[in-house]
């Protein structure tokens, strides 16, 4: 089990303005499993993902990721989880002043034991794996939407994380390139036995999942 969420609650705001978003979420994901989460807009999918990714501090319930409790955790724990998970954002969120290769290297620059050439070599291989061999030295602005999202997939995977969290990765892509991107993600994840939790509204990509769950009314339902 790489992700074990139990009875997680989360609210925005305080006092009378408190808005409960997650109301007792239970979710368990095994190593290498690909889980798609759907649910209406505003149901709290992004909130849940940011908690699991160590970006947001939850105070009630239990969220164990890679053996670490994230509820009421220290900054150190959260940073450690962030480094061990690959996060794919709805917008590609690439650094616009860096080339594709440099963007992917940013993940590896946190690992100080690698040499510059090792980093560059690994990043290059990963970009080749997502089909961007010819585009290593292009800035994001000169890539298409699908290519950018594939760079961000490469960025998320190059650190060989045990978990990938993806928040509507195909939302800003056309059908064709969206499907391509997710297909690449799936293949690479299967090879490295990486678990994926992918949020989407896009019913055309449900077929890549081992399991589909739905977040509704702040609770998980198996679809």
């Amino acid at each position, binding site marked *: 089990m790489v992700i074990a969420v139990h009875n997680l609650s989360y609210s925005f705001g305080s006092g009378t303005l408190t808005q409960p978003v997650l109301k007792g979420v239970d979710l368990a994901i095994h190593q290498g499993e690909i889980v798609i989460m759907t649910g209406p807009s505003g149901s709290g999918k992004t909130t849940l993902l940011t908690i699991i990714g160590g970006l947001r501090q939850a105070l009630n319930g239990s969220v164990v990721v890679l053996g670490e409790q994230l509820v009421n955790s220290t900054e150190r724990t959260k940073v450690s989880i962030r480094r061990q998970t690959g996060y794919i954002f*709805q917008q590609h969120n690439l*650094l616009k002043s860096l080339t594709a290769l440099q963007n992917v290297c*940013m993940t590896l620059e946190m690992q100080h034991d690698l040499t510059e050439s090792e980093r560059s070599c690994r990043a290059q291989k990963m970009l080749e794996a997502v089909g961007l061999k010819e585009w290593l030295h292009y800035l994001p602005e000169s890539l298409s939407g699908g290519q950018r999202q594939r760079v961000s997939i490469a960025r998320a995977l190059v650190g060989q994380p045990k978990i990938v969290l993806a928040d509507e990765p195909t939302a800003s892509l056309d059908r064709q390139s969206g499907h391509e991107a997710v297909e690449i993600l799936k293949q690479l994840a299967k090879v490295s036995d990486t678990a994926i939790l992918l949020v989407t509204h896009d019913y055309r990509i449900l077929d890549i999942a081992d399991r589909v769950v739905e977040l509704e009314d702040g609770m998980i339902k198996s679809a």
Partner: protein
Amino acid sequence: MSIINVWLFPARLAWRQLVHDRPKMIAAISGVLFACVLVFMQLGFKDALYASAASMPLKFDGDLFLIHRQSEAMWRPAQFERSELIRALGHPAVAEVIPLYLSLATFKAMDTQVKRTLMVFGYDPDTDLLNVDAIKSMKVALRVKDTVMFDEFSRPEFGPVGEQLKVGRNRTEVNDYKVRILGVFQLGISFAADGNIVTSDQNFMRIFPNRSMGYIDVGAIRLHPGTAIQPVKAELKTLLNDFVKIYTYEEILEHERLYWENAAPIGFIFNFGTVMGLIVGMVIVYQILFTEITNYRFEFATLKAMGYQHQYFVRMVFASALILAILGFVPGFVLSKGLYYLAESQIFIPMPMTLEKIVTVFMFILFMCATAGLLAIHRLKSANPADMF
């Protein structure tokens, strides 16, 4: 290895982001450059002022010097009785005393007839009080009535005296008194006086009829060779009246310099200019760093979500500041060097570009950029990854 990476990576990212946004980088560099040039010029003028102010006693050949305690600086001395200087002769270590008479006077340029103020030195030429060879070699001629020598390094408004002498033009007026110029020497000017002439003590009295031999401006004392100066100074101090002050050669230079640094408001003006330059530069760099952080806050949040920590971004901001400091300083230095040269050749103020000055200005610029960075860092707090995605 690791400690290098800790700074290298954020610095490299900072550099890539700066280079990516050229116009903004150029704006920031211009700000630093501006501050740099301003500070160089202020310091240059200030040092030139002090150096040239102190240059008046620079050629004095003596061991100890008496001036009236009310003499703030040599360009406006208070006179005291010559007898006070003569009394110093009572000390066995004193070999010789030399009275020096000083006054500002107008000098009529021989070609334009325009009158301008310069400094007149009057002393017995036989004493060689000014250690300037050109004057020493004329000591006999200088004893002739109504003769003077002219400082070639005076401002050009006094006319090309050296050339005029070669074609036989040597008569003009000092303090509306007709004199003959015997020749030129090289001393150098100060902010207080635009030029210098030297004459004998006898001639000095003729040029300034209301002055008398009995009241002097500076008293120079020469000791027997090999005498320790400090003990004699202390003994003379008890011997002489309180209204005179006694200085060694180094001290009288220092006294002149301190006058300009403290008593005259001029030093303050230059310091003020320096501070203003640094503040303007800092505000510009701060503005650039601030908008930079604002523009890049999504990227910072992304990096935070990947596991980068606050310290990394702090280092990035400081690295940006350092890069801007260096990139602004280099052209700023080159430009300032050119301006120094211009000042030396056009307004005849000595402005040496010393290593000390270069280091000082670089430190100022570094400090300025670091402060701007420090102020901009608080903007980083707004990059909270959870609220951005």
